[in-house]
């Protein structure tokens, strides 16, 4: 009986301990009512604050939308007035912009070419320049956006021209006693009197008669051929020159070459002097 009571006491204590610890563990997982109330109040406060913020924000958003709409309408009105001043409409402005952008792309394409390729396509450069000059006659070009585009294209055309091969020459001032044969024979000129024709043809605008030159005349001494020049060599004739790929690449075009240089070649197209500088019509 004594043993039984002690066992009962131990079992009871163990059971009580288990119940209390279980209760404590459950209490750790489950929140108490105080915690519940605190959390509920916290969430409710947060919801109320957020709703208040949304209300204030919605009001600001509506005001901002109204202000933006007003400013946009004012801008549109001014743009309409500008178009009226120019005497055009939006569609024409868009078309003009697209045309300038196409020219800009064309300029980019040409700028990417090598100097030799540019030389062959110099007519395209000239056409581009002509198109731009024509575009500048349109009143839409007074718009700042168009002015910037035009300036960009002009800049590229300048770069293209700078990239193209150029004629090189020096200047020579005629002194008393000079004649073309003598000038051509000078060491710092051509050191070859037979090249007098080079001076004569290159300065045809100021030499009417190769036997008559005057002191203080300034002649251009041709050094290198530009894209629209050809220096006649021994054995050359117009058909041969015209068939040169750097000229026309087509012998049948010799007449075109002759017409352009008739003043220096003379009435007989079969008589062509070496060292004559011919102008190639592009």
């Amino acid at each position, binding site marked *: *009986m*004594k043993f039984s*009571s*002690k066992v*009962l*006491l131990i079992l*009871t*204590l163990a*059971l*009580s301990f288990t*119940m*209390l610890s*279980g*209760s404590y563990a*459950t*209490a750790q997982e*489950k*929140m*108490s*009512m105080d915690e*519940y109330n605190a*959390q*509920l109040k916290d*969430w*409710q406060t*947060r*919801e109320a604050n*957020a*709703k208040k*913020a*949304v209300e204030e*924000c*919605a009001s*600001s*958003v509506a005001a*901002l*939308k109204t*202000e*933006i709409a007003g*400013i*946009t309408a*004012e*801008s549109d009105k*001014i*743009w309409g*007035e*500008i178009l009226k*001043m*120019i005497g055009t409409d939006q569609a024409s402005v868009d078309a003009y912009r697209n045309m300038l952008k196409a020219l800009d792309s064309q300029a980019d394409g040409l700028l990417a070419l090598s100097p030799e390729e540019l030389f062959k396509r110099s007519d395209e450069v000239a056409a581009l320049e002509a198109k731009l000059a024509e575009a500048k006659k349109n*009143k839409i070009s*007074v*718009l*700042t956006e168009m*002015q910037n585009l035009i300036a960009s294209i002009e800049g590229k055309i300048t770069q293209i021209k700078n990239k193209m091969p150029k004629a090189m020459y020096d200047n020579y001032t005629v002194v008393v006693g000079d004649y073309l044969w003598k000038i051509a024979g000078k060491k710092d000129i051509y050191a070859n009197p037979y090249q007098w024709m080079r001076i004569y043809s290159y300065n045809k605008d100021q030499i009417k008669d190769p036997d008559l030159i005057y002191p203080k005349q300034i002649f251009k001494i041709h050094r290198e051929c530009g894209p629209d020049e050809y220096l006649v060599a021994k054995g050359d004739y117009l058909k041969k020159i015209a068939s040169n790929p750097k000229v026309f690449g087509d012998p049948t075009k010799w007449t075109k070459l002759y017409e352009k240089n008739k003043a220096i070649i003379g009435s007989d197209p079969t008589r062509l002097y070496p060292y004559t500088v011919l102008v190639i019509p592009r």
Partner: protein
Amino acid sequence: MKRFSTTSIRLAVFVVLLVALVIVGCSKHPNEKQLKALEDAKAAALSAEQKAADCSSEKAKLQAQLAEAKQKLETMKQEKVDVAKRLAAW
């Protein structure tokens, strides 16, 4: 003496059990309905806070748009002046 001891032990067992039962039984926790209400309150608060954040974001975008529109208006006013000058020199 022996009888007293047994009685005492039994009494002690009874008291301990009673106390344990009282402690376990008297702990108060929120019921299922209350927990559901708490979850609902949490969801509502988070939803409202998300709406507030979305609204703030929209407001910031509109403020940027407004600044852009003001800039465009100033540019347009200047453009009108410039165009008038260029047309006068045309």
